[in-house]
């Protein structure tokens, strides 16, 4: 992709010299032009790779069961549902895209707005743009290769790239084994690292302590460039397959750019019974924590039981990617109308 204007111009340039007003976009027009160029370059990339663009419903009868993600919900009333039908805004297009894969679509991608309740901040907006794609026949390592290719193609200069397992990353940075350490040891580590308020933090489980260490100690030390982290603790498998071993690990990866989480990928779980068990476990966790009960996606389970090809898939946050390409500090700098102006 052509380099375009300098990073500082993208972030700072006023909109045609007009005074700032909540009526105008938060992002500069230069930034919005860059967004358009990035989206076009992504579509060209997948066109060349022979990956088909698809669209799936934003509003669904079922929702993600993931206890760490809250769906926004709306209601349809009319023909087909005179008494009203709750519809959940998708938090990622994963489930219907897997139903397409099960139907034999082959490699597919989608660029869409997704929605997450309760998430707003420097790196979060409750609606944001995801690029999600699936590759039949790939495992998570081969998909990391393709993610790297795509991101490199969007950057004007080749970045430093490294790949490291979740375990090696924690061992290197914190000298502890994330698979073996107890919640108490993780808490002590956070105390030793000087994370303030740890003595008063009441976290629900070990994974939350790992999340604390990841966000407060590991991510800030990642440095510039791309960092792929792979093979997560099995307790953080989400929708990835778990590779047996000692310890068993989830075939999941994340891409960080300059220490910012940008993408999450899986060597996808294809086992319907295991998927159903995880959904049920999620719902129990949600209920125990007093979170909203949500309908699980029975159609996904059915599609898996009909046969999902062996595949890997990844979701990449476009807004955060653009932030990194442009050197922006806040997600609002790359959005025309973030929550405050929506």
């Amino acid at each position, binding site marked *: 992709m052509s380099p375009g204007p300098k990073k500082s111009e993208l972030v700072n340039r006023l909109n045609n010299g007009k005074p700032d007003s909540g009526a105008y976009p938060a992002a500069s027009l230069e930034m919005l032009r860059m967004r358009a160029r990035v989206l076009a370059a992504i579509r060209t990339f997948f066109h060349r790779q022979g990956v088909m663009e698809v669209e799936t419903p934003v509003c669904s009868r079922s929702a993600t069961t993931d206890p*760490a993600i809250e769906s926004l919900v709306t209601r349809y009333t009319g023909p087909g549902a005179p008494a009203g039908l709750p519809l959940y805004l998708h938090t990622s297009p994963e489930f219907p895209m897997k139903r397409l894969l099960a139907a034999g679509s082959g490699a597919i991608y989608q660029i869409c707005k997704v929605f997450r309740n*309760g998430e707003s901040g420097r790196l*979060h907006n409750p609606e944001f743009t995801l690029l999600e794609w699936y590759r039949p026949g790939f495992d998570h390592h081969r998909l990391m290769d393709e993610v790297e290719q795509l991101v490199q193609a969007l950057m004007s200069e080749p970045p430093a790239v490294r790949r490291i397992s979740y375990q090696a990353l924690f061992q290197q940075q914190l000298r502890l084994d994330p698979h073996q350490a107890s919640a108490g040891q993780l808490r002590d580590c956070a105390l030793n690292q000087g994370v303030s308020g740890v003595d008063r*933090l*009441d976290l629900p489980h070990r994974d*939350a302590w790992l999340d604390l260490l990841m966000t407060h100690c590991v991510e800030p030390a990642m440095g510039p460039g791309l960092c792929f982290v792979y093979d997560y603790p099995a307790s953080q498998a989400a929708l990835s397959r778990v590779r047996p071993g000692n310890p068993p690990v989830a075939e999941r990866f994340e891409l960080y750019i300059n220490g910012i*989480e940008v993408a*999450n990928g899986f060597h996808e779980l294809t086992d319907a019974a295991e998927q159903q068990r995880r959904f049920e476990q999620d719902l129990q966790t949600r209920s125990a924590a007093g979170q909203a009960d949500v309908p699980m996606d029975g159609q996904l389970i059915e599609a898996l039981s009909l046969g999902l090809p062996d595949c890997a898939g990844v979701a990449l946050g476009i807004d955060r990617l653009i932030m990194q390409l442009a050197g922006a500090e806040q997600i609002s700098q790359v959005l025309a109308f973030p929550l405050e102006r929506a």
Partner: protein
Amino acid sequence: MATYSTSEFKGGLKIMLDGDPCSIIENEFVKPGKGQAFNRVKIRNLKTGRVIERTFKSGESVEAADVMEMDLQYLYSDGEFWHFMHPDTFEQVSADAAAVGDSVKWLKDQDMCTVTLWNGAPIIVEVPNFVNLAITETDPGLKGDTSGGGGKPATLETGAVVRVPLFVQTGELIKVDTRSGEYVSRAKEE
């Protein structure tokens, strides 16, 4: 007891932390895509002025601090307390030395101050950025010097000592920047 949840956190919000009233300076929402959400907050302890960082689990609730700021008129000091009055209600409050802090150097009766009250009692007294004070003592300067270069110490009516240009004399009113403690200019009687 009033509380705030982490989703109400923003700059300027007053909360209780470790028994002290604090003001949020900066609030960052931190959350892995598939993990636990946190609020990483920069907070100023209003009693000590110290700035600390603190991480909360998102969704947690924190006790609200009953803190407000008022513009009050400084009346006098009895040596132990500094007394202030609300110009409309004539209600009076008294601040101790800890609350008055460095502001004591610039406090002149009748001047308006911003007083931060916690549970009704003053914890911070802030003087205006600029005050006019009379010089009670300074060495006579050299005649004809108008450059202000070098300068000399001058004791003000509040007891503060500032450096002033050589041409400024005892009995004159000067304007002082209270943030830097520096002379700004000569001032006219109001």
